[in-house]
């Protein structure tokens, strides 16, 4: 779960990590009021779950509440990189002397936490990693001993001496936060030193491990702030993983790898997937029915490919689910079905006996993809 900047900063505040004074605004008027409260000037920042705001007009320095309202209006109206923006963060302007970068993250390949720090913060950190990796200090933390003082000294050696005490303090708190809230990423870019010497977290990117949310209901409830596609929400409720794409061949499969493979094979057959939908293992008839409803709710869909390989998922249940779905939803598009694995023969028999006019069976994955792609483009003709 990727937190908004202001949510990450609220967590920072809980852990005594210094952050600028900020007020969240959901309307242009609120942004004006917030800027007034912050002394008449502020920086207005889009709240989204992606990076690149600095370069993309997502951060605006304003010198009046009126300007704040104008910027907020633009941001809330235009969205960012195709994502809706429903709130902005207005923060006090601080006199910055230097900008650094620091992050703590889980390194998948070693299964350990990694801490990074460099004196060259702000934008273009990836460029630095590519051109002068030696400018970034990195420390691997063995979970059996945790982050120790020597790790921190190694990291802050990257910074000028007058910045080290403040940075040491923040890194220690950030590490404790990382463990306690089950974060897989805590990134502060930039970590700044103000003219008066204080070190402050000017930005926050925090990712929380989805698998640990069961023990952080307060963090899980922060999701309410994220704009949600109602179709994706419905799918999620039923334990389905659904992502809308922009093609016309609806895809339903079991297992993320198999679904991705199906998308690839459909593309090779000249089709364009309308979505990704993984029903997971052991899909019930109800889940199958919901999957079909979810996919068919997209008006762009001109054909559907159901590609199920049974492990725990039983082919006969899939078949019954498909038929149940077709009772709930009258499809105006053809449904290509390919079943294999556990009870697949039984499933194919159930479908054949039903003789539903919308259902087309295909024996192999490739033939099913070609059929679904052809049927979709035939419909478009």
């Amino acid at each position, binding site marked *: 779960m*990727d937190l908004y900047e202001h949510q990450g900063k609220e967590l920072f505040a809980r852990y005594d990590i210094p952050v600028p004074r900020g007020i969240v605004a959901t309307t242009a008027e609120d942004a004006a009021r917030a800027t007034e409260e912050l002394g008449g000037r502020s920086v207005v920042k889009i709240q989204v*779950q*992606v*990076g690149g705001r600095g370069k993309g007009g997502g951060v605006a320095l304003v010198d009046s509440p009126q300007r704040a309202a104008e910027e907020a209006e633009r941001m809330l109206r235009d969205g960012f990189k195709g994502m809706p923006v429903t709130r902005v963060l207005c923060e006090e302007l601080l006199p910055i002397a230097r900008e650094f970068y620091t*992050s703590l*993250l*889980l*390194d*998948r*390949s070693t*299964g*350990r936490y*990694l801490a*990074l720090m460099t004196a060259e913060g702000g934008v273009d*950190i*990836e460029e630095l*990693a590519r051109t002068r990796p030696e400018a*970034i200090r990195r420390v691997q933390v063995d*979970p*059996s001993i945790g982050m120790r003082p020597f790790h921190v000294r190694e990291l802050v050696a990257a910074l000028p001496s007058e910045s080290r005490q403040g940075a040491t303090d923040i890194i220690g708190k950030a590490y404790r936060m990382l463990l306690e809230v*089950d974060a*897989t*990423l805590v*990134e502060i870019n930039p970590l700044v030193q103000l003219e008066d010497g204080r070190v402050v977290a000017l930005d926050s*990117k925090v*990712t929380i*491990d989805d*698998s*640990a949310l*069961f*023990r952080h209901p307060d963090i899980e409830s922060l999701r309410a702030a994220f704009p949600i596609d109602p179709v994706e929400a419905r799918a999620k409720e039923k334990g389905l993983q659904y*992502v809308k*794409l922009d093609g016309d061949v609806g895809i339903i*499969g*079991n*297992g*993320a*790898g*198999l679904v*991705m*493979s199906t*998308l*690839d*094979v*459909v*593309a*090779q057959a000249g089709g364009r*997937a309308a979505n*990704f939908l993984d029903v997971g*293992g052991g899909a019930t008839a109800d889940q199958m029915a919901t999957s079909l409803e979810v996919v068919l709710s997209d008006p762009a869909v001109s054909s559907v490919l159901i590609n199920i*390989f049974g*492990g*725990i*998922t039983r082919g006969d249940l899939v078949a019954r689910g498909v038929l149940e779905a077709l009772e709930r939803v009258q499809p105006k598009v053809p449904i290509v079905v390919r079943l*294999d*694995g*556990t009870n697949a023969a039984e499933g194919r028999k159930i479908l054949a006996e039903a003789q539903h006019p919308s259902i087309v069976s295909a024996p*192999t*994955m*490739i033939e099913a993809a070609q059929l679904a792609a052809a049927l979709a483009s035939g419909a478009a003709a």
Partner: protein
Amino acid sequence: MSVLVGRDTRLLVQGITGNEGTFHTRRNRDFGTNVVAGVTPGKGGQDVDGIPVFETVADAVRETDANTSMIFVPPRFAADAILEAVDAGIGVVVAITEGIPVREMAEVRAYLDARSSVLVGPNCPGVISPGEANVGIIPGEVCMPGRVGLVSRSGTLVYQIVHELTRRHLGQSTCIGIGGDPVHGMGFIDGLAMFSDDPDTEIVVMVGEIGGDDEERAAAFISERAGKPVVGYIAGFTAPPGKRMGHAGAIVTGSSGTAQAKAEALEAAGVKVARTPTEVAELVQVALS
């Protein structure tokens, strides 16, 4: 001979009395796996179809000499179950459970480093050596014994590939599902090394997908040593690019994590990378003829 599971497997099932635990215990036993024990705290002394259930893994190992464990314990308790199995001296631990918090898996990894147990998973379908033993949820009906070794991050996708191989009478020595979690036990490199030493395996199929850099590191491993021939498949060429949060991930791996990058790395190491599951079987057929 196969790797990880076979005729010498003495399987213990942690979480045997739960629905999934019981279902797959029966399935594995029907396949021919020697299931010797189950463990469910609070149900020691009971039995499941004649298989004795113990309070702890240590008890089970003492009484039955179990050497392999399959874990169907809910995510909240699964890391503890893995640690318990390793602590009791179980040599191969297959963790089926999905959704174990990453922080706990990081601790498990650190614990494993100092020990000789092999962890497969978590969030994996398990390991099957056709004709010998099945530890996990891979459908044995689609497999047949043979000389193709497989190691895969995905579950159902590898079943599809195994199915394509079996249809062409290209049987399998062992199919290893290493699972889809970011922090996991054995990886591609471990699988390649195991198959390299296995006289029953003639060729290895590697099934990867977007995310992380396991495939890239495997490609480097393949370049550095002469092992058995490898055929690859990567899922996710048309997957929508993930929304990237901070920059840290890219800085750390230096890899974009795309299917394209992985395929290129493998091809540069001399691996033929199929573009469909069917093509995997075709490439294996050509390589073995």
